[in-house]
C-alpha cells in the first residue's frame, strides 16, 4: 500500500531524510482538513463539482425524485438558457466588462425572428439567421460604444438594456408569438432527444456545444489569450502591441452572436416567443459567472466554472423545491447556499502549500 501512494507527503515509504528547512516544513503533520484542502486545490474544478455531488446526494435523500434522470434532464433544461447567455457574459467579464443587456438582446433577437417568420412567412433557416444577425448586431453596437466612446461597459449596456428592451416591445407590441405560428425549425431547439432515459432537448445539446467551442477558443487560440491579457491589464496589453479595441469589439460582437443563438434556444424552451422570457437573465448570468470563480475585475477565470456555477444554482432551486420547501424559505435557503458554496470554493483556493 505504501508503494501505491508515492505522491502523498508523509507516507510511510522510506523517504530521503529532509535536508533543508523547507523540506522539513513540507513534511510536517497536517490536519485531515488541510489534506483534503490540499488535494482539492490541485484541481480547481473539483470544488464546485464536489458542491454539485453533495447537493445531489442531499436532495435525492430528501426526495428520491430528485435523483431520477427525469428531474436531472429537467434541471438541464431549466438551466440551459442562463448557461448559454453566461457564455457571452463570461467573455465580457473576462475583459473586465459587464453586460447588463444580455437578456434584452436575447429577447430582441427572439422577437424579431419569431415575428418575422410568423407574420411575413420567412422560412425557418432564414428566420433563425435573422435572429442570430440581430443578436450579433446588437453586440457589435455595445462593442462600438465601449471602444469608440470609451464608456464604461456598465453604462453602455445599461443604456442599451433600455434601448433594446424598448425596441423589442415596440416591434412586438407586447404580443407573444406562439409555437404553432412559427416554422418548425424555430422550435426545433425544444425537441426532446431520448438518451437512455435522459430526455434532453436539442437546445441543451447546443449549449454544451457552445461551451466546448468557446472553451476551446479561450484556452487554445491567440484570440483567447489576448482576451485574457486585455482583461488582466489593458494598458500592458496595449503596450505589447495588442489592439485592445479590436479585441473588445470582437468580444462584444461574439457575445451578441451567442445571445442570438440563445434566442433560438429560448424559443424552444418557452414554446413561444414572449417579451418577458428572459427578464432575470442579467443578474442570473452574472451570478453563474461569479459563482464559477471568474473575477469581476477581469483576466481571471475559466468557462468551465461558469457552467458549474449555473448548474449549482439550478440544483439548489429545484432541489429545495422538490424537497417541498415553501417559496420564501426557498429564497432564503438559496441565498445561504450560494454564500456557503462560494465560501467552500474560496477556502480551497486559499491553500498555499
Amino acid at each position: 500500500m505504501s508503494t501505491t501512494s508515492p505522491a502523498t507527503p508523509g507516507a510511510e515509504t522510506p523517504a530521503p531524510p529532509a535536508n533543508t528547512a523547507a523540506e522539513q516544513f513540507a513534511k510536517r503533520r497536517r490536519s485531515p482538513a488541510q489534506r483534503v484542502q490540499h488535494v482539492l486545490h490541485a484541481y480547481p474544478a473539483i470544488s464546485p463539482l464536489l458542491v454539485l455531488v453533495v447537493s445531489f446526494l442531499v436532495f435525492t435523500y430528501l426526495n428520491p425524485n430528485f435523483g431520477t434522470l427525469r428531474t436531472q434532464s429537467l434541471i438541464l433544461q431549466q438551466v440551459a438558457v442562463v448557461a448559454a447567455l453566461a457564455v457571452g457574459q463570461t467573455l465580457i467579464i473576462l475583459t473586465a466588462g459587464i453586460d447588463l443587456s444580455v437578456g434584452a438582446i436575447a429577447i430582441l433577437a427572439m422577437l424579431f425572428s419569431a415575428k418575422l417568420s410568423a407574420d411575413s412567412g420567412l422560412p425557418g433557416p432564414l428566420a433563425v439567421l435573422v435572429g442570430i444577425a440581430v443578436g450579433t448586431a446588437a453586440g457589435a453596437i455595445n462593442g462600438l460604444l465601449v471602444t469608440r466612446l470609451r464608456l464604461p461597459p456598465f453604462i453602455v449596456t445599461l443604456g442599451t438594456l433600455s434601448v433594446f428592451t424598448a425596441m423589442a416591445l415596440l416591434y412586438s407590441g407586447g404580443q407573444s408569438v406562439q409555437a404553432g405560428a412559427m416554422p418548425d425549425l424555430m422550435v426545433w431547439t425544444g425537441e426532446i432527444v431520448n438518451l437512455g432515459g435522459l430526455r434532453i432537448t436539442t437546445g441543451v445539446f447546443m449549449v454544451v456545444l457552445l461551451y466546448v467551442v468557446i472553451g476551446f477558443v479561450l484556452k487554445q487560440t491567440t484570440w483567447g489569450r489576448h482576451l485574457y491579457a486585455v482583461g488582466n491589464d489593458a494598458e500592458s496589453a496595449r503596450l505589447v502591441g495588442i489592439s485592445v479595441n479590436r479585441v473588445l469589439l470582437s468580444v462584444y460582437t461574439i457575445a451578441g452572436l451567442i445571445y442570438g443563438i440563445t434566442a433560438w434556444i429560448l424559443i424552444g424552451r418557452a414554446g413561444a416567443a414572449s417579451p418577458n422570457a428572459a427578464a432575470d437573465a442579467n443578474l442570473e448570468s452574472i451570478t453563474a459567472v461569479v459563482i464559477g470563480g471568474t473575477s469581476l475585475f477581469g483576466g481571471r477565470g475559466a468557462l468551465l466554472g461558469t457552467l458549474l456555477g449555473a448548474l449549482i444554482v439550478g440544483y439548489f432551486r429545484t432541489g429545495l423545491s422538490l424537497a417541498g420547501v415553501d417559496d420564501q424559505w426557498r429564497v432564503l435557503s438559496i441565498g445561504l447556499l450560494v454564500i456557503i458554496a462560494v465560501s467552500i470554493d474560496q477556502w480551497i483556493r486559499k491553500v498555499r502549500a
Partner: protein
Amino acid sequence: ACGSGGGSGSGGGDDVGVTLITKNSSNPFFVTMQEGAKKAGEADGVKITTAAGKEDGDEQTQIAAIEDAIARGDQGILITPNGPGVNPAIEKARDQGLYVIALDTPPDPADTVDVTFATDNFKAGELIGEWTKSQLEGEKATIAMLDLFNDKIISVDYDRDQGFLTGMGIDTKDEKKNGDEDPTGSYDGGDYEIVCNEPTTGAEDGGRTAMENCLTKNPDINVVYTINEPAAVGAYGALQQAGSEDGVLIVSIDGGCDGVKSVKDGVIGATSQQYPVQMAELGVKAIKKIADGGKAPEPTEGLDFYDTGVQLVTDNPAEGLDSIDTTKGTELCWG
C-alpha cells in the same frame, strides 16, 4: 431508482401533493390565498407547496415552478398565471397527468387549464364604473387609468379596465385592449377625458409613479381607476404629496381589510371585493376530489370560469346598484 412513471411517487407519504403558484408573494391577496390553501390542505390531507413569481408578470419563475411540481410528483397545480408565457408549461403538466386549476386570473384561452376559480373581473370593473358614474352626477370626468401592464396582455388587466369604462358608459372599442378608447368624449351623463393609461404592476410603488406621471400630464384629474388596492395606495400617496387628494374619486378592486378600511376612511370611494380564500379552498377541494376519483366542478353558466363572486363595498351606496357597507365589508375582508 430511475424511470419514475406518471404523476406517482410523491415524496410525502400517501398525501396528495399540490403546488400553489401565485403571481408573487408580497401582495397580501396572494399571501392570503397561500394561507387559505394551506388550511384547506390540512383539513383535506393535501400537502401544499407554495411557489411564486418574483413579481407580478414574472412568467419564468412560474414555469420553473410548474416543472418542479411535475418532478416532485404532485397531483395537481393551482396557479394564478402571470401571463400567456406559462401556457405551454401548463399544457406539459396536464400531458403528464396533473390536474391544473387557475385561480384569480383566467388564462387565455380559458381551456388551457381544467377549470378556473376567479372573480368575474369584468363585472368587478363594471361595478366601480357604475358607482363612479353615479357619484359624478354629470360633472366632467377627468380620468386616470392605472392599469397592470403596458408590455403584456393579460385578462385581469383588460377585463377590469374595460369593465370600469363600460360601467361609466364609455365606448371601449376592442374589449380586450386597454387604451384604444377615444381620449375625450362623453360618458353616460357628461364629458370625459382619459388622461393616461399607466402601468402599475399591481404594486404600491408602481401605483405611485403611475399617478405622478398622470398628474404631471393633467393636475385636474378627479377620477382614478386602479387595477388593485396596492396600486390605489400608491396613487393616493402621489395625490397627497401633490396636495390634490381632495375631491378625487379613487376606485379599486380587491376588498382586502386594508382596502376596506381605506374605503371607510374615505381614501378610496369604492372597491369591488374579491374572495381569495374561497378560490384557494375550492381549488384544493377540487384537486382532492379528482385524486379520489371524482369530477371537477363546471364553470358558471355563461362564463368560461367558475365565478367566486364579487361585491361592491362603499359607504356611499348608489341608487340601483347593489353594495355592502364597510362594516359588512370588514366582516368579509381578508389579509
